[in-house]
């Protein structure tokens, strides 16, 4: 059996309160599931369900309060496996004084990509996301959509085995959304994994294999997309919104 690309075992996370010690916000309450290699996995849930916190734990940006989390079969504290992960999140903030080309070079070096590999990859990625003609301009001059395109290029920089996308369609125009779908499909074809958090359900539905639904920090559903889309009463296909409505009800 292949090692899961991402695995959560009874993960809990409580954000401590600054002013009231001992009391805090419980963002995750015993979440357990695994993401297998080669699948497109969606993480869904209403606002404040704990989706971004779970991704942050996977990426080593925050620590779980309890339970264990694994990335590429290793504990998330093992940072070397981050070289095989690409991450794009909504409201990505890049240093505004950098140009797109210098940002990718900077990020590529931090991701331990060899200069010889990085040199041709940076212009190729900028070409792919449609920023090659603005590559030498400071990011301060970019629109939100352009920053999101750059964030996509940044996430793909290390040719990752696991691509983590947090609200990737936010701020993207229709052409860029099409590109995003193509990228997700290409990753699946290459046997790589995509973990995506999105509220754009209609766009996401055709792309994903399995999904997990978080509600108030608890795992409410984890299984194949096809299973949730089948109405258990009538046996007919239903929309994802209709399928999620009873699950997400508090």
């Amino acid at each position, binding site marked *: 059996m292949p090692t899961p690309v991402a695995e959560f075992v009874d993960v809990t996370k409580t954000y401590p309160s600054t002013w009231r010690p001992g009391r805090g916000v419980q963002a995750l309450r015993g979440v357990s599931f695994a993401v297998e290699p080669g699948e497109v996995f969606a993480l869904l849930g209403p606002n404040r369900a704990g989706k971004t916190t779970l991704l942050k734990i996977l990426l080593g940006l925050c*620590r779980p309060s309890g339970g264990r989390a694994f990335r590429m079969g290793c504990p998330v504290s093992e940072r070397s*496996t981050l*070289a095989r992960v690409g991450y794009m999140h909504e409201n990505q*903030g890049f*240093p505004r004084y*950098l140009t797109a080309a210098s940002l990718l070079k900077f990020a590529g070096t*931090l991701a331990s990509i060899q200069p010889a590999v990085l040199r041709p990859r940076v212009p190729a990625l900028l070409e792919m996301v449609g920023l090659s003609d603005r590559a030498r301009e400071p990011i301060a001059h970019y629109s939100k959509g352009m920053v999101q395109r750059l964030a996509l290029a940044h996430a793909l920089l290390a040719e990752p085995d696991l691509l983590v996308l947090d609200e990737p369609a936010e701020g993207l125009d229709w052409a860029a959304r099409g590109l995003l779908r193509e990228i997700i499909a290409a990753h699946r074809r290459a046997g790589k994994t995509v973990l995506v958090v999105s509220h754009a359900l209609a766009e996401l539905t055709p792309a994903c294999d399995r999904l997990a639904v978080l509600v108030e920090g608890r795992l409410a559903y984890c299984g194949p997309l096809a299973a949730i889309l089948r109405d258990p009463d009538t046996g007919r296909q239903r929309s994802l919104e209709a399928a999620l409505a009873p699950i997400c009800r508090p």
Partner: protein
Amino acid sequence: MNIRTNLAIAEQLIRDTFRQARASGIAGILLAVTAICVVLCLSVRVSGDVALQGGDEPVLFLPQPLPGTVPPTTAADRGVHSVLEANPELARREGIETISGSLTLAFGAVSFPLTRERADAIGFLELLLAGGVAGTFGLLLALVWTAGFFPSFLEPHAAPTLLAKPVARWQLLLGKYLGVLTFVGFQVALFIVATWLALGVRTQVWNLSYLWCIPLLLLQFAIFYSISVLLAVVTRSTMACLFGSVLYWLLAWGINCGSVMARGLPGPEYVPSFALALADAAYWISPKPIDAQLILFNILRAEHHFERPVIFKLLESGCGFSPHLSILSSLGITGVLLALSAFEFDRADY
């Protein structure tokens, strides 16, 4: 991760800091200050001076009075002095060498009578440049302006770009700190070397000890910037870093001054032993800006121009002042602050 990759990461973080400095405007301001000072140095001209002493002779403007003698301040002496000053030719005929040259600034627009040797006059200018412009104004400006570098580096939207990478967090922190030090070091070196060269070219005075100001000023900045790093990691607020580092600077002056005074007072009848122990501890565990000023004072031979301040006398007479131990203990505090920052940064949630 091998050494080559680590060096490449450090290089990128240093480059990033230089870009950040350029974008924030501090690089331009510091370069402008350097340019103005270099032009000022290039405008210096010394004329009509004479050499009064050999290279290794001590500077004595008046003979040391013998015990019990009365200083020559009678009206008759003063009269002779003014006659000689007004008639240097007469003085020379009498075998008395007097200085009657001038030092001009701004390409001759401002002129000062030269009452000392050329090297001394240039030494005084270097003291003003190193102690005043670079050591006080430049250092404070750099401290205030770079206070925002770390908080913007750790901004919630920007941090994941850096932190979701296989580089250890402490390495990122130290790399960025090194980047800021490299930037400030570059600016300090540029200022000191350029003004040294400009003064040397114009006056043929090549005071090599002036170059010691580069490591000394950089060291002072490194010590005070370490608290800014810690505050940035804990609060992620530019204002906290700005006010915190300036407050720390003032506090360090206060602690250093208080502890030196307590340690310098004679005998336990003036200071209780526990207060002395407290002053001793405070001296060793806090940065020492007064010590740094004393080192600078000695290196630039500022006693040729100023009376040695009382606090310096107390420091040297108190408990055996050692510049090496002073610098090492200050570096130790910097190391502790950086280690605390790295520890806090490593366990912080983003």
